[in-house]
């Protein structure tokens, strides 16, 4: 059989760059295959995808060497339009790629552009909607849909075109774990019903491997460093070397010191042959102590019976109460629309609750204005672009002080001190634009930190970040938490973040707090994790399959062990 996608000695250099982003790529993908392309941010995996759909070199110009053929065609010669008949691309931004005003129109978009008659169009749109389970939502507008539903619409929008190749560019980046899992099974279903080749670009390996993948291609610094079956890859040490997170159960097995063999099919925790490893894992469990977090008893934030509704009769918060103790690092989790952002908006004072109260260090904060609260409860938005408004780092970090009329000398010294804490001091005179994403994130954190808040709330601090950047950001926050005693609340979908960095998880669902417990308990309890659109951690399944009791204790010890390793600097 001839490959449907073939890269031969392929290299690509962006016009604006001096070094090639892709070097000597030799890759064959055969019809009907499902291939995962993994690699850290900046490795060139998205560039590879853009070569297949011809965005490179048509929209993003640069220099190509070697050859690439897609179903006998050369993308560069066919152009983006020409390739769109063959390759359907689903982008990671579920909002941005929703073009129509309703679901039906968005699905029809490609057909409209192809001037298909309306009769044919209706039939094809209906079929694509059926395929992606969106039939009941045809008249909905994008703001009435969840992220997962929008993504299904995007899939339907490319499936109407009878494409042969489906290309997913980080499809899981904006989804909660449960929705991500659903997306992966939907891709699997589509492959069963349509003859398509699927290429998934993603660094969230464990989530993609929820369903079988034929091959995983690992890209590192623009080269292919591995091209093997998932079983072979998981048995190797390629992932760690390349800074891609392994599935947690694999990490746990490796901590226990076992050597994983490909023939034991480590691709899925529930079908893997764990027999050869169970004994060693059990003895590791016994020998590992539990990591105890010491938290003071001093309550810094008390939220009491908070209720809120935007529209009368439709409550978003139905009596939420919890305490946060000084120096805690906690996560606030729950699906989209569960009320997480409403809750943080109320704490920051952007909106007023219908009833209930919030005490900060024992004092009611309802009389405080937004900006007065802002000095004591800092909010860091998800994307640095949503906060940065000054061209220079110093100015940006000092902005909050400057507008409060703090004398310039004091601003300078406090900005300098903060920049040192945040590891940005060497860049103090740089323009913000010259920084990497992780550094920009630190600038936004610094610009809040400079006001010496007692609590910092971060909205999805690591969304869309690969393992290395994730670790960089989270270790930085951990240091702020430990060294400065800063209380940190994180709104997140990321189960790893919850498990590894927070002592407690508040689980919000349908406007109610359904759990206030250690993450190791939340993520091993089926009912709670399902209600919050989380996924039970694979560590739980591993523990159960190896006969370790209780599984939540196993998870807890695993985390303690990992924290220990990180303190010793033995992990990235």
């Amino acid at each position, binding site marked *: 059989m001839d490959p449907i996608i073939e890269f031969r000695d392929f290299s690509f250099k962006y016009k604006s760059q001096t070094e090639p982003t892709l070097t000597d790529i030799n890759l064959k993908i055969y019809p009907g295959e499902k291939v995962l392309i993994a690699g850290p941010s900046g490795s060139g995996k998205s560039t590879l995808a853009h070569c297949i759909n011809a965005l490179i070199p048509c929209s993003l110009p640069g220099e190509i060497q070697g050859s690439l053929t897609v179903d006998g065609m050369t993308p560069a010669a066919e152009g983006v339009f020409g390739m769109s008949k063959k390759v359907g691309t689903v982008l990671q931004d579920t909002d941005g790629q*929703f*073009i129509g005003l309703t679901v039906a129109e968005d699905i029809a978009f490609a057909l409209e552009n192809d001037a298909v008659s309306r009769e044919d169009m209706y039939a094809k749109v209906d079929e694509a909607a059926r395929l992606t389970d969106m039939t009941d939502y045809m008249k909905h507008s994008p703001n009435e849909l969840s992220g997962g539903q929008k993504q299904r619409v995007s899939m339907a929008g490319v499936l109407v075109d009878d494409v042969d190749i489906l290309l997913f560019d980080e499809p899981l980046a904006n989804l909660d774990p449960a929705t991500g899992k659903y997306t992966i099974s939907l891709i699997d279903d589509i492959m069963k019903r349509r003859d398509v080749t699927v290429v998934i670009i993603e660094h969230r390996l464990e989530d993609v491997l929820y369903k079988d993948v034929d091959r995983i291609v690992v890209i590192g610094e623009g080269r292919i460093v591995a091209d093997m079956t998932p079983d072979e890859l998981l048995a190797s040490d390629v992932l760690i070397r390349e800074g891609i997170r392994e599935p947690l159960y694999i990490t746990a097995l490796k901590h226990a010191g076992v050597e994983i063999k490909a023939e034991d099919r480590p691709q899925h925790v529930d079908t893997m042959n764990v027999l050869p490893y169970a004994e060693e894992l059990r003895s590791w469990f016994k020998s590992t102590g539990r990591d105890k977090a010491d938290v003071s008893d001093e309550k810094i934030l008390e939220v009491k019976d908070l209720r809120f509704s935007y529209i009368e009769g439709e409550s978003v918060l139905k009596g939420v109460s919890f305490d946060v103790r000084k120096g805690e690092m906690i996560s606030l989790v729950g699906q989209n629309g569960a009320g997480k952002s409403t809750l943080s908006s109320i704490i920051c004072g952007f909106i007023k609750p219908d009833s209930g109260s919030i005490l900060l260090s024992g004092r009611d904060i309802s009389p405080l204005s937004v900006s007065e609260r802002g000095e004591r409860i800092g909010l860091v938005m998800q994307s640095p672009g949503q906060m940065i408004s000054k061209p220079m780092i110093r100015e940006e970090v000092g902005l909050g002080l400057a507008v409060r009329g703090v004398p310039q000398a004091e601003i300078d010294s406090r900005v300098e001190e903060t920049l040192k804490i945040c590891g940005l001091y060497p860049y103090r005179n740089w323009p913000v634009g010259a920084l990497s994403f992780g550094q920009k994130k630190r600038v936004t954190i610094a610009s809040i930190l400079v006001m010496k808040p007692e609590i910092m709330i971060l909205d999805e601090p690591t969304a869309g970040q690969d393992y290395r950047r994730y670790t960089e950001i989270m270790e930085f926050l951990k240091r702020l938490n430990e060294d400065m005693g800063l209380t940190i609340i994180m709104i997140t979908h990321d189960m790893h973040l919850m498990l590894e960095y927070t002592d407690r998880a508040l689980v919000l669902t349908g406007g109610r707090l359904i759990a206030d417990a250690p993450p190791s308990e939340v993520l091993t309890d089926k009912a709670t994790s399902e209600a919050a659109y989380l996924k039970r951690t694979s560590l739980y399944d591993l523990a159960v399959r190896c006969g370790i009791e209780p599984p939540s204790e196993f998870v807890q010890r695993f985390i303690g062990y990992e924290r220990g390793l990180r303190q010793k600097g033995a992990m990235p």
Partner: protein
Amino acid sequence: MTRMISYEARDTWIHRLTGFTKLMFFIIWCIVSALTFDTRVLVTMVAISAVIFAMSRTEWKQISAVFKLLMLFMTLNLFFIFVFAPYQGCEIYGTRTDILHLFGDVYLTKEQLFYEFNVLLKYLNIAPAIFVFLVTTDPSEFAASLNKAGVPYTFAYSFAIALRYIPDVQDDFTRIRNAQEARGIEMSSKASLPARIKNVAAIIFPLLFSTMDRIDVVSNAMELRGFGKKNKRTWYSYRRPGKSDAAVMIFAVLFAVAALVLTYYDGSRFLF
């Protein structure tokens, strides 16, 4: 968050008209209303507007805020007409009947009152027409019908796409403003005007950058799905004009002719 003056799907004969018909009707309505000062015509038009408004089943809450704003402008307009041209009415109608001595040599005249009454009628005429047009016209269908009427589709589509992303940009704006306000960048009336103008930059720049990112994604997404590939395109939301479209168009034209004949019959736009 409720968004004012946006399309809401309902099933009335006005909703079923094509966007193009409604636009044409609206334009004719405005022209006639601007040209005539014939009170009989204006009163008839207000009555028809009111009937159309009622038949469109538009709810008060959909338009209340904008309606209030419009009324504010109307009041200001009427007030300033009086301030700057207190005898405009007398000039138009060629007579002067004082009713009330205000101050100095300024008198309130019957003619001026009548003239301003006619201006008021024009407002009451056009306001419901705008509202009905906006709340009953599906933007995608409107774009489609514009395109069918000969407007290039890239231009027609920009209407639909703007409406698609306005709410997203509004949400971005709210989020950014909130976060900046928490940092102490005061945007409410507490800050002085120069400070507020300066502070706007702290919202505009992030908003601009996030919008540019959005445009990047959207234009890539559109290109990947073949937008602009062909010289023509079809429309999912297109509706063939029906009998009622023809009827509305004929009515609008006949009404306009009748109204203008009546208006200019005696050689003047004004009737007293």
